[in-house]
């Protein structure tokens, strides 16, 4: 792979020349210590010292709600208005892995054109990161990335090492060729290796994901699920923030004064009660414990069994979002039979007292 160097002061001029062709999206601080991928109008808003955004980048490809087509008496008109030319800058390795999982999912058997077209129209410019106490990506082996980006920026002290991952990425470099330096010095390499080693040591969480499919199977009837179910608020937040959750609902919105409907879709969550309801009010997953089992089957078991790696990319969003401490980290530890000091464990002890 080709690697070039870019001085830090040249980053914004480079992004500026790129964003003449497409909308630039990058992390900005939205609330105190809470970041979000936003459309950038003013480069000073970009905050690269972020750990994770509130919502994952899936919102750029399949927005929380959008229209798929207009249905009229005369026929159907496809609506791809959510597909615009975009540049996503500052995305971390775990989130790029998340997109690779969604790619596999949305292109399996039937290609989802609403996802694929948006994906084809977006340049992925990745950026290196530093873990906090909730980052689990070293355990999921998604802390490094070798594919799935057009350019990847590794931050050194005064410059970036820029990995060129695709032919489109190479075209970007050519827009402003003068600012990229092909000459990477031994000193640059030393700085990079040192940074890499220190980052490896900074991870605080270690989960044995490879053991999870077996444990999920063995502990399928374990009372721990009832404990989790009792604590879960069925709020659906974990699904909204997870970069690999894909579920949606379909909306039929009749237009006023016309015999026509906009057919749209919106994010859904399998932890919500209405999710598996069928005609006659029968519900295949009435209990919260059953719904959480489905969620964790997907994250910890299904994908590993099929593709040899978990559907969790270790971004830590569930850990920083769930109000009652239900997240891959606490659930994995509980499956391993470790003593837990989490909200739901304290809660169930209170209840059984």
């Amino acid at each position: 792979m080709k690697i070039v160097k870019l001085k830090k002061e040249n980053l914004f001029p480079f992004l500026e020349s790129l964003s003449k062709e497409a909308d630039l999206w990058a992390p900005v601080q939205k609330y105190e210590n809470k970041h979000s991928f936003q459309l950038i109008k003013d480069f000073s808003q970009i905050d690269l010292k972020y750990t994770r955004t509130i919502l994952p980048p899936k919102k750029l490809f399949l927005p929380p709600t959008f229209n798929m087509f207009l249905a009229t008496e005369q026929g159907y008109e496809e609506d791809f208005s959510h597909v615009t030319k975009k540049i996503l800058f500052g995305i971390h390795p775990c989130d790029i892995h998340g997109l690779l999982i969604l790619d596999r999912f949305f292109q399996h058997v039937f290609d989802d054109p609403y996802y694929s077209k948006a994906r084809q129209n977006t340049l992925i410019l990745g950026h290196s990161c530093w873990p906090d106490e909730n980052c689990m990506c070293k355990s999921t082996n998604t802390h490094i990335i070798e594919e799935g980006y057009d350019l990847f920026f590794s931050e050194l002290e005064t410059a970036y090492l820029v990995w060129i991952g695709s032919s489109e990425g190479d075209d970007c470099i050519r827009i402003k060729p003068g600012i990229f330096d092909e000459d990477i010095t031994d000193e640059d390499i030393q700085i990079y290796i040192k940074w890499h080693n220190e980052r490896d040591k900074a991870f605080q969480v270690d989960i044995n994901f490879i053991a999870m499919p077996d444990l999920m199977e063995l502990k399928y009837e374990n009372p721990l699920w009832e404990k989790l179910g009792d604590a879960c608020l069925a709020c659906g937040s974990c699904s909204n923030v997870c970069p690999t959750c894909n579920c949606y609902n379909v909306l039929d919105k009749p237009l006023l004064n016309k015999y026509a409907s906009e057919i749209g879709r919106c994010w859904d969550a399998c932890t919500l009660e209405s999710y598996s309801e069928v005609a006659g009010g029968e519900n295949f997953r009435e209990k919260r414990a059953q719904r959480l089992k489905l969620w964790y089957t997907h994250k910890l078991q299904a994908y590993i069994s099929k593709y040899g790696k978990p559907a969790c990319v270790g971004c830590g969003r569930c850990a920083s979002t769930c109000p009652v401490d239900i997240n891959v980290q606490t659930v994995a530890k509980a499956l391993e039979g470790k003593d837990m000091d989490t909200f739901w464990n304290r809660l169930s002890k209170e209840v059984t007292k």
Partner: protein
Amino acid sequence: MNGENKCINQTNPYLPEAARIVRTYPLTEDVKYFQVRLVDMEKAISFKYSPGQFAMISVLGAGEAPFSISSTPSRPSLLEFCIRKAGTVTNAIFKLKENDHIGIRGPYGNGFPIESMHGKDIIIVMGGLGAAPLRSVLLYCLDNRDLFGRVALLHGAKRPAEMIFREEFFALKERKDLECYLTVDADDTGKWKENIGVVTTLFPQLKDINPSKTFAIVCGPPVMYKFVLKELIKLNIPKNQILMTLERRMKCGVGKCGHCAIDYIYTCIDGPVFTYWDVIHMKELI
């Protein structure tokens, strides 16, 4: 598991095709028959499906829902459905008349493993609306009679008036190459000449079953499965030759929306046809 896109709209699997209702009439108090044809003739002719597959039907302003295709691919270009009134979409479908338009997309789902059933004896057990998906495979077997061994049909309904395709099945009783047994739980007409009792009371009629060369196909209300499966196991039919079609909530039909997930399979693409072994193997299936 399954992996072929045979959807009529190749570039956008979510986009329906306009279809015209050719014929509709009531089958029972709350079930109606619909015969439809895609408006685009070329698409109507090239709509290829197998027995056991389903389609998504939409009505403008009401929404969309999955329905089994009740017709057989051996009689192309017209599609048949039988639809029970259950809620928003089905109520809207019930209001439609001949020549009205609906949206159709599909076919979806794995369907029955027809090819591995060739040369085998077939027992079809249906209860209530279970006749909707199983009529397709029944008619397919009858249209390709040489491809199969014995064909037996066991069909149960609550009352005579609730037996869907009643006349059609009575007519089939005349056929020498089909064993056709009909039953009702209770006869409130005093005119019912066939068996009275639940569908399992028909099993003694099945004589000299050769289990290893038999495929059994079951579809009916949830309560029916337990008892019918017991009978089939008593007959020693291998668990992977007992097939059933299952229902789940479905929004997309193409393995994307997640609503039909069980364990780690999606009923809409990996099903809706499963073997009894799948059911035992995957805890949540029935």
